[in-house]
């Protein structure tokens, strides 16, 4: 089943003459885990706003083409109607605190209250996501006393509690240290088992290579590569779009020049693939020599 469908999408921000997104066509299946990569300004955040139904309704820019989320055209439905059906986590966690609630627990409840969930159902759902995000011990703290990483997890918990079938995440680990990022990655990974459709922009290619079903590379507002992680992350074009290769891929690319990577083997994107490839070269060399 197609969950998100984008046809002929071009988007101009107000007062801008160059489109932030250009002629995008895209279909995302329900349950698919899609990573969006690209250099700064490539249009990743804009795509996130489009895929969560906030553009065009909340923005005054000009949008051509159509976007449907779960068969609802984003031109005809307000963000309020998409709430609960599409989640969005932004980069800056502080701006995602409602400031209208007192404690972490109540903050997570805020979305449920807005969507009219029965109060008797709330505590269980809230406790579940607080446990999942490791915030359960902070439930009575004020959201403002949390660290950046804890706030980011709170932003994630506030979205997860709504249990949206589609979750869009725009650099959710940008403000986290490696440990914090790993925790958030782990939480997001649990979503894949729940058949949630996930779209994420993320700079950690290593994690993307391990987790994503599909990677989309953006360059100057256009989709330039779209396929499985092995295909996109090893593409010879990647560097022309200002995206760095994974260190494994880079090592193999450089070694290839000296014949130190087996010619028939695709470039690696994980540690395992890279170990396998280099092993094969050394055994060929040994066997041949």
């Amino acid at each position, binding site marked *: 089943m197609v969950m998100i469908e984008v046809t002929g999408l071009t988007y101009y921000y107000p007062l801008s003459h160059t489109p932030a997104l250009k002629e995008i066509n895209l279909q995302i299946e329900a349950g698919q885990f899609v990573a969006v990569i690209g250099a700064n300004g490539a249009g990743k955040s804009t795509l996130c*706003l489009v895929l*969560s139904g*906030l553009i065009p309704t*909340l923005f005054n820019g000009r949008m051509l083409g159509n976007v449907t989320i779960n068969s609802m055209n984003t031109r005809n439905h*307000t*963000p*309020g*109607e*998409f*709430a*609960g059906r*599409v*989640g*969005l986590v*932004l980069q*800056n966690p502080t*701006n*995602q605190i*409602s*400031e*209208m*609630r*007192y404690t972490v627990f*109540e903050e997570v*409840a*805020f*979305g*449920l*209250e*807005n*969507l*009219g*969930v*029965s*109060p008797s159902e*709330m505590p269980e759902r809230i406790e579940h996501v607080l446990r999942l995000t490791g915030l359960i011990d902070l439930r009575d703290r*004020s959201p*403002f*006393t949390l660290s950046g990483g804890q706030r980011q997890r709170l*932003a994630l918990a*506030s*979205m997860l509690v*709504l249990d949206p079938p589609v979750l869009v995440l725009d650099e959710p680990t940008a403000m986290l240290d490696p440990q914090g990022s790993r925790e958030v990655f782990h939480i997001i990974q649990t979503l894949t088992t729940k058949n949630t459709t996930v779209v994420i922009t993320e700079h950690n290619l290593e994690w993307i290579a391990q987790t994503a079903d599909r990677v989309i590379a953006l360059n100057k507002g256009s989709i330039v590569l779209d396929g499985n992680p092995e295909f996109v992350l090893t593409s010879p074009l990647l560097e022309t779009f200002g995206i760095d290769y994974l260190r494994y891929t880079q090592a193999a690319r450089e070694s290839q020049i000296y014949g130190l990577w087996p010619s028939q083997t695709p470039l690696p994107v994980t540690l395992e693939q890279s170990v396998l490839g280099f092993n094969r070269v050394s055994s060929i060399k040994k066997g041949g020599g």
Partner: protein
Amino acid sequence: MTLGLYTAGDSWLHRLFPITKLIFSLSAIAIIFGGPNKWLSAILPGVISILILWSAGIAWRALKLIVQLLTPIAVILFIVHGFFGPANHQILMRLGPFVLGQEGLMYASLIVVRLVSTLASSLLLVTSTHPGSLIQALEQTGLSRKLVYLLGSPLLLLPQMARRIQTIRSAQQSRGLETQGNLLQRIKALFPLVAPLVFSALVDVEERSLALEVRGFSAPTPKTNLTEIPDTTKQQVLRWGMIVIAVCFLVFEFWRKRNGYD
């Protein structure tokens, strides 16, 4: 922890239904500026507010805030009206070419007393009520969430602004910009402070509204509440009482003025 002006606590004042405190503040302000007998109307609400704050154990913080905020304004008012008040007639003192007039001084005093009273009665609400509780209480009264947010967001924006000013200030101090020194230096240093402040505030407002939207802030469904803030019949009666008193005072003053009693 404090969020803006709110001081956490568990006094009877903290536990009052926020709307009761809101109505008190609004009635007090109406009387301060529109009640009969200027001086009494200006002083009494302030004194009552301070007494209430004192019984709740948060008077010192409120008084400190009042002094901090109003001292510069008071000094300016006294100078401007004391020396240059248009109604000055009775001369109290001569300072070189300047003359201190009694009428101007009295006028400035009245304004200052009114400001102190206004601030005290507002602080009664603000220092004892978490912005979130006030907002939730407003929601409970059945107002639309958008209207509530519109009313509440200045309250919410203030602490946010204060945090940001602090951040930008320390960033700029570390880059060697003056945030201390004489008045002129400080005013000059204000410009590089204001530009990023305004810009980042705009970006933030946009991002915040996006974040609220995806959490169903304007979802077309009826809202629920995790917990209800308790209200009581007594407080309801009290609220109506305060409204009636304020209206009576205003009507009485209006009637007095119309019939030329001043």
